[in-house]
Structure formats: C-alpha cells, structure tokens
C-alpha cells in the first residue's frame, strides 16, 4: 500500500514528507526529479515511474507535486485517486492548496495525513468525518483555543465512521433549512479549421449545497434522464432506485458535495453555442503574419453568452502582436507566448473581432505548427444538454425546506484548430 508521501513544489523542493511505514530516504525522489527535468513542462511528468526498489506515483495539482512511494503491487488508480483526495482535503480545509498555506498549517496537514491513511490503507477520507476529528482552523477558534487551552482535535469517535450512512453526521440542526443544486455542464469540443465539429461531448456535474436538519431523505427527479450516457454518483445515492426509476434517491451529506457526474457523449447531438471564424497565417518571405478572428453566436438557446475569452498558444518565434479588438482587450505574454483576448459578453448585433499583425523573430523560419484557439465561455440559466430537474421531494422530516436549482453551461476543453 502507500508507503510515503512527499510534497514537492514547482521548483523541485521537498517541503513535506510523511511516512506511513518505515522511513524512506528522500533520495528516492531523485528518480522523480530526473523524469521532471526530462519532461520540461511539469504537466508532462509521467504519473507512474519505476525505480529499482520503489514505484513512484505522482499527481500535479495547483503547481504542487504529490508524490507517493509504494513498494508492492497496488492499483495505481487507487493511489492517484487518494492523492487527489489529499489535495481536495487540503483545499477544503484551508481554502486553497498552496505551498505557503500548507507550510502555515503544517501540523494540521500532518495530523490529517495521519488520519487519512493507516499503514497505507485509507482510513477516513470523507471530509465530514475528518472535520469531526480535526477541526479546520478558523480565526475564532484559534483565539478561543489560546484563551482556554482547547484543542483542534475532537476526542469522540466521529459518528459517521461506522454508521450505514458514513457521510452524514447525526444531530444536524439548522434554523434555515435549504437545499440548493447547481447543474453545471462543460462542453468539451474540437472544431476543425472550417468550423465542423470533430468531436464534442458534455461533462456534467450536479453540485449540491444541503443544509437540512435531522435525517432527511431526498428524491430528485429529471424531466429527461435518458439524455445521460454515463453517470457516477456520490455514495449516498441509491443505485437501485436510479436503475428502476431514473430518479436520485439519497440521504444527503451535510454541506457541500458533488451529487453526481454525468456524461453526454458525441453520439447525441451536442450543441455548440458559438462559431469562430479565424485566419492566422504567416508569410513565407517576411518575418510576420496576420491574425483575424471573429466570434458569433450559433445555438445559445436564447441566452446570452458571457465571459467569452480566447486563448492562443502562439508559435515560439512570435515576438509581438499588434492587434485591434472591436470589443474587450487583449494581452500577449512574451514569456509563455500566450495571447489572451478577453471579450466579455457576446453581442449578437455587433460581433467581436480581433485583427492585426504578428511579428516574428527576425530570421526565424515560417512556424511549422498551427496554433490552436482555446475558447472560454459561460451561459447562465441553461444546461446545454437540455437536462432539466423536474422536482425535489423530501421524506423523513416534517419541515419545509427552501429548494433551488441553478443551471450553468461553460466551455471545458473547447478548442478550435487553425
């Protein structure tokens, strides 16, 4: 099972180590550094490495490497999932997952890691359970603790640990009972030069924020559940009910959680909300090129496209860009060669356009690779797949909760080839 964990920052310093069995020298990370140097970009470091005596499985998140050392045959997905869970927990506790925050809370992190894994076996990874054992830091609590000598560690057995609903603690009480659901859809798409869809799919997620007293039992049903090609649920959802009635029946965890993930694949028609007309070309003879991009609405279901943004990774030889946007503003980062055009709201009457010239390094040959456009956008109040919640019912408790469903569509990995 998982033997040790090293947290390594962007520049390759180990700033935290935790061993669940015997101590392994940090020199084992040298193999990782070797691979890291070879990969150039930190994103490209292979996640599974083999060394003479250990296996190194790592993830890269928020500019940090979480590197685990294992010695026996362990499912790598198990390790990777767990590492992501560690990062999630740190984020959950401290608001973000960064080196400085981890250093600021190093003892808490250490206690958390100890609580999450025992002898390499996961022990408690549910945020609800962890928070009962080790309380997240708040300014108020640390002040109180210093005054009365209290502690951040709970001394009773977390109730969730062993019940049949481990994700929910008992005795939850709220004055305002509310249950909110956000249906968030991301469009992953590749469009080719001519605007034809090469590939498109929708990744959906339903995030919930449930603050209900007692042990409520909820049922959420959809108008059109058949849309969904593949679903994965929070453990609280009763799978049998889904199979028989296509409704989500569950006792919710307390607070924020991801109720379900779903997937609408390219077989069903995935709506592409915008079209992009672009022309990026470089001259054979002179060290310069032209750029002309226009974006217009395609199928937006009557809603406004907001937060529109275009990101282009330019070829290495492009030294500057002299462009004029009809709307929004653009920046060109010389170091990373990234051109960002921040447009904002899409006005269908007056389509935004960016055009002008690009200059290349003197003497550089015509770039071989075509830059791809990455599109970001947001459409409020609509789930692009057409998924709709029909109703939410509550059983088991007497009070009437506030209920709400919000829809939003975003661009995921939405790229246009040139």
């Amino acid at each position: 099972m998982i033997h040790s964990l090293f947290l390594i920052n962007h520049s390759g310093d180990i700033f935290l180590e935790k061993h669940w069995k015997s101590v392994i020298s940090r020199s084992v990370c040298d193999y990782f550094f070797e691979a890291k140097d070879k990969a150039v970009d930190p994103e490209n470091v292979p996640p599974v490495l083999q060394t003479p005596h250990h296996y190194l499985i790592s993830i890269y998140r928020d500019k940090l490497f979480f590197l685990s050392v294992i010695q026996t045959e362990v499912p790598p997905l198990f390790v990777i999932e767990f590492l992501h869970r560690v990062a999630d927990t740190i984020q959950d506790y401290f608001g973000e997952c960064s080196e400085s925050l981890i250093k600021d809370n190093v003892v808490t992190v250490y206690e958390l890691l100890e609580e999450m894994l025992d002898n390499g076996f996961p022990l408690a990874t549910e945020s609800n359970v962890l928070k009962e054992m080790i309380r997240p830091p708040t300014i108020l609590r640390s002040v109180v603790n210093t005054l009365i000598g209290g502690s951040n560690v709970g001394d009773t057995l977390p109730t969730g640990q062993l019940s049949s609903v481990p994700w929910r603690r008992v005795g939850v009480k709220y004055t305002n009972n509310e249950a909110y659901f956000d249906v968030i859809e991301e469009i992953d798409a590749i469009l080719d030069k001519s605007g034809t869809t090469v590939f498109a799919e929708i990744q959906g997620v339903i995030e919930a924020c449930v603050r209900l007293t007692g042990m409520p039992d909820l049922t959420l049903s959809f108008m059109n559940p058949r849309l969904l090609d593949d679903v994965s649920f929070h453990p609280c959802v009763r799978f049998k009910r889904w199979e028989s009635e296509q409704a989500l029946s569950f006792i919710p965890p307390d607070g924020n959680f991801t109720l379900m993930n779903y997937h609408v694949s390219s077989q069903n028609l995935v709506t592409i909300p915008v079209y992009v007309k672009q022309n990026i070309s470089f001259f054979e003879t002179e060290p310069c090129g032209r750029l002309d991009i226009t974006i217009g609405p395609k199928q937006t279901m009557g809603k406004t496209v907001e937060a529109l943004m275009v990101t282009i990774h330019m070829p290495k030889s492009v030294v500057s860009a002299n462009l004029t946007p009809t709307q929004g503003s653009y920046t060109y980062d010389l170091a990373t060669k990234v051109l960002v055009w921040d447009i904002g709201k899409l006005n269908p009457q007056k389509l935004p356009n960016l055009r002008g010239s690009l200059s290349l390094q003197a003497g550089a040959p015509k770039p071989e690779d075509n830059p791809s456009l990455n599109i970001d956008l947001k459409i409020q109040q609509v789930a692009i797949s057409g998924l709709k919640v029909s109703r939410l019912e509550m059983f088991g408790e007497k009070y009437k909760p506030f209920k709400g469903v919000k829809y939003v569509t975003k661009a995921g990995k939405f790229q246009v080839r040139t």
Partner: protein
Amino acid sequence: MTDSKYFTTTKKGEIFELKAELNSDKKEKKKEAVKKVIASMTVGKDVSALFPDVVNCMQTDNLELKKLVYLYLMNYAKSQPDMAIMAVNTFVKDCEDPNPLIRALAVRTMGCIRVDKITEYLCEPLRKCLKDEDPYVRKTAAVCVAKLHDINAQLVEDQGFLDTLKDLISDSNPMVVANAVAALSEIAESHPNSNLLDLNPQTINKLLTALNECTEWGQIFILDCLANYTPRDDRESQSICERVTPRLSHANSAVVLSAVKVLMKFMEMLPKDLDYYGTLLKKLAPPLVTLLSAEPELQYVALRNINLIVQRRPEILKHEMKVFFVKYNDPIYVKLEKLDIMIRLASQANIAQVLAELKEYATEVDVDFVRKAVRAIGRCAIKVEQSAERCVSTLLDLIQTKVNYVVQEAIVVIKDIFRKYPNKYESVIATLCENLDSLDEPEARAAMIWIVGEYAERIDNADELLESFLEGFHDESTQVQLQLLTAIVKLFLKKPTETQELVQQVLSLATQDSDNPDLRDRGYIYWRLLSTDPVAAKEVVLAEKPLISEETDLIEPTLLEELICHIGTLASVYHKPPSAFVEGSRGVQHKRLAGSSGSGESVESPDTGSAAGVSEAPPAVIPSQGDLLGDLLNLDLTPTTTGPPPPASTGMQMGAMDLLGGGLDSLMGDESEPPPIPLRTDTPQSPQLPHQSPSPPDYSPTELGGDLGGSPAMGAPFGAPPATMPASFNAPVSGGLDDLFDLAGGVGMPMGAYNPPKTLWLPAMKAKGLEISGTFVRRAGVIQMEMTLNNKAMSVMSDFAIQFNRNSFGLAPAGPLQILTPLSPNQSIEAALPLSTVGPVMKMEPLNNLQVAVKNNIDVFYFSCQYPISMLFVEDGKMERQVFLATWKDIPNDNESQFQIKDCHLNSDAASNKLQGSNIFTIAKRTVEGQDMLYQSMKLTNGIWVLAELRVQMGNPNYTISLKCRAPEVSQCVFQNYEMVLKN
C-alpha cells in the same frame, strides 16, 4: 497564528530551547513545543535528540497532544528502541481506555512502532482489540495484524492472528470486512502459496454484501479480492457480474476499474449467446469513456488499461473512436497513449476520420508526438489495406513540408509499407530520394538505404547514392553500416557489371576495417557466398521477404490474458506480467482467464488450464539451424579473426578480385537458367525472419530486408532451445509405454497400421496464437502428415503454407497445404498434407527428426517433430526366403544390433499380425525350445532393407530383437518403431 511560526527559530540553541519548553509545567506551552518538534520533523530535520522529553508528554488527557506525541514516536522509535520501551506502559493502558477512539489510536500507533521489543507487548492488546465490541477498534486492529506481519511474520502465525483475521471476513460490519480483506491481501502477497484468502461461495456472498455498504476504498479491496475467485459455473459468474455491475457508476475511478477487471475476467465464463453477455458488453463502454474525462493522471492509467481491453475485446469500444482524439493541451503521456488506441480501433469504417486526425497531429509542436503520429499513419496503411493509398499520399504531403524529423519518420514507415505491399507504391521513390541529404538519424538512413538496395534496378543512380553513403562508412552507426553492406550486395547482384568496385570496397570495409563482429561476420558471409556460389547468393540475398504482420505490437495472447487478470494494477500500466518487475522473494502467481466451460468450447490443449503448463511448454524452435551457418563461417576465417590481420590488401584483396571474377561469370551465365527450387527453411536467411519478442513496437534493424541476419537475431532464437529439446516430441515413442492397458484389446484387433495419436508440435505461445498438433499416417502407400491447426489469437489467420527442412529421408510436402478458408479466432481446422520422399536429403539427429516451418499471414514459425519410421516402410517389403538368408549372411556382423522389448504380452502370431499392419513382413517362423523365432523384413522408401529376427519366449514378456541392415544407423529407429507398434 499559523504554524509557520514554528519554523522561525533559527538560533543555535534551538534544540535546547525546545527541551526546556517540553519540560514546562504549562500544558499549552508543552503542546506548542511538541508542535514545533513535529514541524521540524516534517521538513526532514533531525529532532531525535528530544526523544525522552517528548515521550514524557505522552501521559496526558489532551487528545491532540497525545496524537502529536504518537506521531513523533512513530517516526523515531526505530532509532531509539530502548527509549521507546518507556512508552509501552502508556500504550497498554490506553488499549483499555473506555473511549474507543483512544483504544484504536493506541493499537494503531503500537503497530507502527517497528521495534521488536514493543511488538512483544503488542500481542495481548491486539488480541483483545480484534474482538473489541466497537467495530472501529476491530477494523483498526485488522490493519494492525498486517503491520505486525510485516515486522515479524512468524509471531503473527504463532499467535494465531491469521485465523482471527479470517474470521473477521464474516464480521457484521462491512468496514471491518473490507479492512480484513485488505490486510489478508497484503499478507497473502508475501505468502503466495498460503491459502489465506480461501474463497468459497459463502465468503463470496459475504464479500458481495459488504461491497454495497463499505467505503470506496474498501470496495476496491473487495473487488480486487473477488477477481481472484474462480466461479464454479457460468450461472455463478453471471450472478457475481450482476452484483458487481452497479460499481461501474461509482465516482471513484479506482472502484470503476477494479469492477471492470472483475467483469472482464468473469465474462470469459459466460456463454457468448447469452443475452446478458451482450448487455454486459454494452454496459462496459460508458464508464471507460467517462474515465477519460478525469484528471490526466487517471486518464493515463485508464488508457493503459483500455489498451489491453481493446485488444481482448475490441467490440466494447469500437464505436467510441472520437473520445480518443487528442486535445492539444493533453499532457504528452496521454497523447501518446491515445494515439496507440486510435490505431488499435482503426478499421475500414473509420479510417478516413482517423487519417484526418493523424494528419492534424503531424503539424503539432511536440516532436515525440509528431513522430508517433507519422508512424501511426504508416501503421494504418499496414493495418487497413483499403487505406494504404491515402496513407501513402498523406505521407508524401508530409514529406513535402520538409520538416526534418517528419521526413525521417515518414521514410521509416514508408519502408514498412513497401514491405507490406511490394511493387505497388514504388513510384514515390523519386520523392524519397530527393530528401536523402536531410536524413541524419540512423533509423531513417538505414530505411532509405534499404529502399535503395531493394529497388536498385529501378533507381538509375542507385550506385551513386549508395556510394555517397560509403564515404563516411566508419562514422555511421552499426544499423546503417549493416544495411549499407546488404544494400550494396543487393545492388551488385542486380547490376553486376557496373558495381564490382563498389561491392569490393564495402566488403573490405566491413571485414577488414571494422571492429564490429556483426558487421565483420556478415561481410564474410556475403563474401563467401559470392565467391562460392553466386546463384545461391542471389537466392539468399534477394529472397522473397516474409510479409510483415499487420499488428506488430499486439500483446501476445497468453500475456494478454494474464494482464487482463491484472487490470488496474501496476502490471497493467507497464504491460508486463507482475513476475517481470515485482521485487525478489515476493512470489507472484500467474493468472489465466478461465475458459468458458458452459458454452461447450472446451479447449483441447493441455496447457490452457494451468499457468504451469504455459511456462513449461516445450520450446519448439529448430535447434540445429545454426549448423549451416557454422559451416559457412568455419571454412578458413581463422587467420583473420584470431591471428593478426593480414598485411593490408595483398592476400585478401587478391582473393576478392578472384572471387568476383569467377563469381561474376557464373552469375551472368546462370542468369537465364531457372534457379533450382530453393529450400527456404534451411537457407541461412531464415534466421533473420522477424524474431518475435512479446511486443516489438518497431522493427529491429535486422529484419529490414532480405539480408542476412546479424548474429544477435540468430543467437536469440537458435541459441537457447536445443538444450531443452521438447519432451513431448518423443511422444510417439514413449506414448506407447503409457498405453499398456490397451494391450489386451490389441490381440484380437483387426490389423492396420498403428498410427500414433496427435501430439502438440507447436504451442500457441510460441507462434502468436497458432497451435499445431499432429501425427503421421501411412495409408495405401501414401504418407500423410495430419495436423490440427488451432487459432488461439484474436485475429483471423490465413495464407498458410508449409515447408520442411532437409531431412534424412527426403520427406517433402507433395503439394501445398490445403487450408482454403481463413481461420477465425478460436477455430480449429484439420489438414492432411500428403508427403513425398523425393526431397533433398540431409542426415538429421535423431534420424527421424523433421524440422518444419509454417507460415501464415502473421509470421513464420518453426517447430520440429519426429515421425515413426514405419511411415517409410513400403508395401513391397517382403523378401524372398532365399534372398533373406543370403542377405542376412551377407551383411557383416558388425552391422547387427540387438535390443530388448520389455513387457510385451503378445504371442508371436499376434505380434506378427500387428507388425504386418506397419509393413513389417514375417518371412519365416521357427520354434526352438519353446522360443518362437520370427524372421522379418522391411524396406524403406529409399531402398534400404532391414532384416530382423524377433525372439519370443512363451511366458516371458521380454522379446529380443536383432536387426541387420547395411545402414546400421536406422536400427535404433526401427527398434523404437517395433516397440511402439507392439505396445499399442
């Protein structure tokens, strides 16, 4: 107020200061001090000097402080074992605490302190905790057993903890069950043969129940454990599949993949015509697709596994090509994997889409990725014949971009396309030649040289092109040198008049100026060939090349089966069996998929059931292949290889001139004559047929063309096997011994030739899934080789052909191998091949050994087998009495050999009858003192007579046989044949 303040002390007396604080009376100060210590520890500072002071803080009712001290203890106890003992009392006391959290914490921490003295004290508390009333404590204790086992395995066994752990599998709490399974699995890994996880239907049921209720991590442990179970029948495996299927919708991808493993494995047991089977296949696709939208690291592992799954069951994802399209911001390791799967899924239906994508990728930034994309285009051409033309034109477009590495990569793959579709796309050669100068990578240069050599007759200035390479011969890599040597020899054989000088130059460069033994040896072989028999040289060097197979990088079926059983593990990421990389003593069991027992497709070969059968299957490679090459080489090379090199250019150069003079004449003279029928299997070019390593992604240089293989390739397939000459090949002989019980029946049986049962000649493992078993029969004077060909690979096999090596009696196929229909996966076919005895002769050892090469669309495979010599006994082998007597006397007594046949219970008449069935004729019978003497004769196809005297004594099961023959070598074989016939 953050923890970073703990790092701020930089004064020299830091440790001293901490010591003071730890011993402070104030609780709060103490805690702060311990926190500082822990903080230093996490960043790797050595604070072990504070051990006694920290341990003193352990006696506290403050849980946080206690936990912190425990953290410290776990880290440093090993370096301070004596001090650690101080903590034992507190631990033991805590194990009795009324608060289950504290009990669990104590037992958990104790297990983490890897000090022998402490473990002794651990046993009692642990035993109590394993039976604790609180499940939280029990589940913690279960893991503790695994910890303890890691420190002291003997102790755990002696104390009976393993049994207690097994009992916990039936615990009422699912979390306890999951942890018990996890602990047992970990312990079992170091005890591969112990029956720790003894799975039976009852425990399986318990596990399946717990599966629904335990945490996601527990589910992974349970699923992995379930995967090791072998269901009794297809109904049981269906019911397990049904209960596991809901796990495919879990949010945790590790759970999903473990569930996929269980399903993939148990699906093998289900009959394919079952409705449920189809449903299950459909259910597998969406979760696999969803895994690809997760974080890149998860995607990578998922892709490596999908690669296995599509090889085993391509139907699952055949419609999902698009999800494998590469996004430009995917990490490179994901891109490369996706590309691999795209090619695996490529088919006629989607090839247009795939090609368009690949072309797009070929203009990306990342060099590795672009290279692989270009290579993929070539693989598509080879895989989907209809697309070859488009692929070639795409590659030409790419060559026009003049991007250096794209051009080089394109040339390497075009070489493969030429080999797959000979004489089809040569029109592009001109374009390729234009780029000759820009090639700087050995592989591309070698490929280009191969093309020039192979098509020398169509390239006007081939000699100039090759000559230009020759200038820097010694700076080239070995790969290029070898290829250049071969190409020039090819050129010479095609255009002998103009290129003499060139070939002499290259031969002398290779043989005299090179330190590389491969190059030198190859040079000598060519030299020798050209000087002794230019016609033969032509046949060898310009021989038709075996077709390259469509999917060179498919994982071998048996390995694939094993890997499918390891889905989700490291083995599946490396695509290697665990035994290949799991460390040392950790034994690893080979896993095989269980065949479907219900569907009636029971597999005949004995090796499918057990893993042992696979690894011990006899290697069926022709052992004595090297001889001929040996002959070629050991002529008179010794002076040059062992002694000092001869004075430059005198003797050798003279020889070269000479050889080329003589060789040239005969070469040109023979040009019009039809070449004698070449016997491919024994010509030295056979060693360079692609040697099949499990999954070669690319072609090794030696298989580039029809050139002589360098020694590495020869050494690999022909070096090792002779020592382990397969036991099973003797089966026709020894098989008789096993069948003693048939004897009784044999007496009154109608006569007929005895034909040995079929034996396994070529195991599937050696031949990419082609399994051949067979035997020889003689019917009405015709010798036939009867074979059962069984396709155990996943792809259809076709284009079968067979050839024999030269053998003692000139056996050769009388016609082509008649297998007209392609052989689909899991199908078997019977084939009878009539044999003639007019083929070329070479004495074999043993005499009746036959080396066979079988070719199909995938590759060429070799095996050897032994035929019973009675196949060669002709029907008119009965001698006249007088002649018999005269001949018997005529043959010198030195040629007589005597043998004993033991345990034969036939009387003389029955024996005589039986033998006659095999064309062994009794000429006379004499009875002397209760002993029957049978005089017998037989004649071999090549006209050799064998005379025999068989003595049978009543009541004595041992016969004595005397054989007389002018060629005494056959006696041994004849005797074996007697024994075989008489005992069956």
